[in-house]
């Protein structure tokens, strides 16, 4: 009998956490844990997907602050705490490509020729 728990107990394939306005107070309130994040602009576009890994000084707090500082149009963000930040990040990239046909520009620049996984676009 196959195990019937579902799958991504974290939140489904896509990031579904609420968007937060990008300001100093919001960043200061972020946890120091590891995890993944998405930086967005005011028009609803995604500027960058990223992760706070084991070398980040203050986990998501410092990783999101540093990522946001690179994007003039950064207006909001969302995140998910997870220790499986690598596989979750790769999953988010694959789902983004399935949905949009290409990576966010900042991720495409940093990919360095490494493949992005192909994942079914259907489902949450």
């Amino acid at each position, binding site marked *: *009998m*196959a*195990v019937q728990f579902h*799958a*991504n107990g*974290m939140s489904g*394939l896509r990031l579904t956490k609420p968007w937060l306005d990008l300001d100093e107070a919001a960043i200061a309130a972020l946890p120091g844990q590891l995890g993944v994040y998405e930086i967005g602009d005011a028009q609803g576009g995604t500027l960058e997907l990223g992760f706070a*890994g*084991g*070398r980040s000084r203050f986990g998501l707090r410092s990783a999101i602050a540093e990522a946001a500082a690179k994007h003039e149009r950064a207006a909001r963000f969302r995140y998910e705490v*997870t*220790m*499986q*930040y*690598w*596989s*979750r990040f*790769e*999953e988010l990239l*694959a789902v983004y490509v399935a949905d949009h046909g290409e990576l966010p520009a900042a991720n495409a620049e940093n990919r*360095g*020729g*490494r*493949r*992005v*996984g*192909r*994942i*079914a676009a259907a489902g949450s």
Partner: protein
Amino acid sequence: MDFEPSPEQKLILETVRRFVREEILPLEADLDPDASELPAHHRERLVAMTKELGFYGLDIPEEYGGPGIDLVTRTLMAFEMAQHRAGLYAPCYGVFGGAGLAQLYEADDDQKERYLHPVLRGEKRGFFALTEPSGGSDPARAIRTTAVRDGDDWILDGEKTFISGADKADFGIVFARTDPELGRKGITCFLVDTDMPGFRVRRIVHTLRSTHYAAELEFNRVRVPGRNVLGEVNQGFAIANDRLSRNRIPYAAGCVGVALKAQEMAIAYAKTRKTFGDYLSTRQAVQWMIVDNEIDLRTARALTLEAAARADAGKPFRTEAAICKLVASEGASRVVDRAMQIHGGYGMTKDLPLERWYRELRIRRVGEGPNEIQRLIVARDVIGGSFH
């Protein structure tokens, strides 16, 4: 058996050891602690170095361009290549090259042209899909994916899970049931392109190993041409079984490698860390942990080399491969656990590689056949009988 390395082996091992310490460890200091890939420019530079050394594609048969190094020597090299943070699942980040999928060497000429040679040239990637949601340890009964003949083609329906690399692959070696009445003699192996309609990577399976994740696959009326049957129809189980036995030796060697490094770290730390006015290494509790590590290490090392030597000699090695896999995976888990204990709080941090090895070694007791299956294999071989 005497496994003292020959002068030639010593030279090779010293070269690999220096490569790990001078090329891999400095790069690793800047990578994320869970990383399993190098930036492209470093990878290209190091691949050029291993090619220059004559060590690229170690596991590729000599007739396909491999360096023709025997398995005992490759096992000794694998002990060295695993001695860094990513070493268990990505020894030297793959810059020594891989053999691809061993089953492809049994393919016909047309299949070799379409799959094997592109893999060896680094142009294509493949995956190996045996396990299903209904189980992986007993493929003869657990495989529910079906392949039904339709003219010259086959129609595949079903699902697979815990399949590494499938989301980034160009094709897969997929096992499906072609005769429901024949048990293990009713399974056939297919080469399935990932752009064939009906093939889907449904999701990534997140585990305690953050990189080198696995995926869940769906086959929905995937039409596979008859020329993509690998080997004979209904003979796929033998292909799967042979791969499982062969893989257990390098699998064990990786465990031994990280355990060797963990022991080295534990001893170094015990000789420098003071508590209550004296070094940890003077405390009997710590000494015994280090002694127990040494016993686990020497046992696993000897049994892994014994399995490799039998394979090199062309003797049956299924029992030895099963024993070395279970002894190395369980022993290395204990070694890393004790090394973490000796390091105290630091042992739990991502500053050191111990926590990554601890997580990844837990998978080693299940991967490539759970250790209970290894015991079953040994029992079957030493007691006899089929254990149905």
